[in-house]
């Protein structure tokens, strides 16, 4: 099937770790493979690249790269791979590093030009340097450009930011966001950072102990209460919204998404532009009545769709859905773990709210109950 990446791998390794995955991923946008160490996310990526050999099937956009009979060697797969450490060739200059892959593809396959990649990643001033004379962030940018210059049909990135310090991370993130939006190349991005997931991913796969726990649209998957993405302070959802209105007097802008809209601080984006936001569970409170006499600006009607206890007996996480789901539709928590095609359900958006168990009981919150979500703040990710 075109437009889809189908990856099925089964393998056992020494030391008890085994991988058993069956993924269907969109061959577009950025898909984050999220999991803790030992979850199999890097192994999955390496199997897709052909760097690890596992029994299985791999079809990318209708083309078979691996099945029972064939195994396309790495150098014949039209992919690019960015490793955790930049792994530049130390004996070659930046320019020669960039040209290494570019020279090895046929001319008719070249869709990304040297100058373009160098400009995208801000490398023009570095071309004659040696890798040893670059900072960590610069090296990783060279590695990304070098990968792009093979004009890949699939870009694989294995924790490209995790070896960098905080400052280099902040420096390189905007480049990655730009690439995600400017390229029509699907990106598979391995990470253990919920921040990077919130900021970069369109689609999210959660792995644990070599198994797929979830695979779906970013917002919907982050809103699932049954996943180990975070039962901590940072639990929350991320979503993409569109700027629709501006209040110049109070420096606010209204951003809309399926099922609702929020007034947030004006960050200067033009009307119609997209912004990515994070709404943390601790910033969402629930009430049975709309409390207008409040400092909270954003009060939206919602429906309770589920609730789970947390590590602490006093605290529960409750999922609500903004907008009104059509009668008979599901609750947003897919019954099947492998449900891969979940989108914004019926034009609604889920939120997670962090409440005390006492409040939850006092309000008698149970699935189906209409409530008002009071949203204290929503952070724009930039």
């Amino acid at each position, binding site marked *: 099937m075109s437009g889809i990446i189908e990856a099925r791998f089964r393998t056992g390794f020494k030391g008890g770790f085994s991988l058993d995955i069956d993924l269907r991923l969109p061959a577009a946008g950025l898909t984050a493979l999220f999991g803790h160490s030992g979850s199999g996310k890097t192994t999955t990526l390496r199997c897709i*690249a052909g*760097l690890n050999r596992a029994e299985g099937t791999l079809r990318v956009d209708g083309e078979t790269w691996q099945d029972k009979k064939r195994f396309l*060697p*790495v*150098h*014949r797969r039209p*992919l*690019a*791979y960015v*490793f955790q*450490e930049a*792994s530049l*060739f*130390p*004996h070659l200059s930046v320019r020669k590093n960039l040209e*290494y*892959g570019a020279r*090895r*593809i046929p001319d008719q396959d070249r869709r990304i030009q040297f100058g373009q990649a160098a400009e995208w990643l801000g490398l023009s001033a570095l071309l004659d340097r*040696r890798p*040893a*004379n670059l900072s960590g962030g610069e090296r990783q940018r060279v590695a990304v450009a*070098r*990968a792009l210059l*093979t004009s890949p049909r699939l870009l694989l990135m294995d924790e490209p930011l995790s070896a960098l310090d905080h400052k280099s991370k902040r420096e390189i993130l905007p480049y990655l966001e730009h690439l995600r939006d400017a390229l029509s190349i699907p990106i598979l991005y391995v990470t253990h950072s919920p921040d990077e997931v919130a900021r970069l991913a369109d689609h999210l796969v959660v792995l644990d102990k070599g198994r797929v726990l979830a695979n779906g649209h970013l917002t919907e998957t982050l809103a699932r209460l049954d996943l180990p993405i975070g039962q901590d302070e940072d639990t929350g959802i991320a979503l993409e919204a569109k700027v629709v209105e501006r209040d110049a007097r109070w420096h606010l802008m209204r951003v809309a998404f399926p099922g609702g809209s929020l007034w947030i601080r004006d960050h200067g984006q033009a009307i119609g532009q997209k912004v990515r936001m994070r709404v943390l569970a601790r910033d969402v409170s629930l009430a049975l009545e709309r409390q207008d006499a409040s400092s909270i600006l954003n009060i939206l009607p919602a429906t309770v769709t589920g609730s789970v206890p947390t590590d602490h007996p006093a605290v529960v996480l409750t999922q609500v859905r903004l907008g009104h789901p059509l009668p008979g539709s599901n609750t947003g928590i897919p019954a099947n773990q492998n449900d891969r095609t979940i989108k914004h359900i019926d034009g609604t958006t889920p939120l997670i709210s962090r409440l005390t168990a006492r409040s939850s009981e006092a309000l008698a919150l149970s699935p189906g109950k209409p409530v008002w979500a009071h949203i204290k703040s929503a952070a724009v990710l930039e």
Partner: protein
Amino acid sequence: MTFDWSPVLLSLKLATITTLVLLIVGTPIAWRLARLRHWIKQPLVSLVALPLVLPPTVLGFYLLLVLAPNGFVGQIVKGMGLGTIPFTFPGLVIASVFYSLPFAVQPLQNAFEGLGERPLEVASTLRATPLDRFFTVVVPLARPGFLTAAVLSFAHTIGEFGVVLMIGGNIPGQTKVLSVAIYDHVETLEYDQAHVMSAGMLVFAFTVLLVLYAVNGRIAVAEKS
């Protein structure tokens, strides 16, 4: 005193040819050993290292048995109409290759193992075929290993004595190399000749090692800066 240059030239010729053969033969052996993940690796590594610890006479003795006209290899060679091997220059080259094999294989193997998998994986994701990866990534990155292998093979071949005597004998112009010539001079009490040759060897050996360490040091510094 007339100085006989022929043993010097013969030694240089022998060492040059042996080094070339060793680089060609030793590189694939070292590569294979560096990549091997099997219990057979340690026995093979030990086998290659044998000439380091064996008395040269032992190696020479077995080579003589195998290469002799009625030996296993000797019969094949004779059958092909190529004459005999012992006490000829080609015989010396064969013996030298075995004798100096660890001096070529070990530095190369260490250099290859030091590279790790990563540069090769990177090159393969950048569409380089296995042979392409070897010549554009492995060879340049393992350059100090190649240099060490070449210099040590060359110097060790110049210095060999026991194996030469066993396989080559002492035929002037054909198998009488420098070390054998020195031995001859000492035996016949021609100390002047022995002095010149020995001092020359001493200076040569020191110079070779000095250049090797200096160049390898420079490469290491250049790749860091």
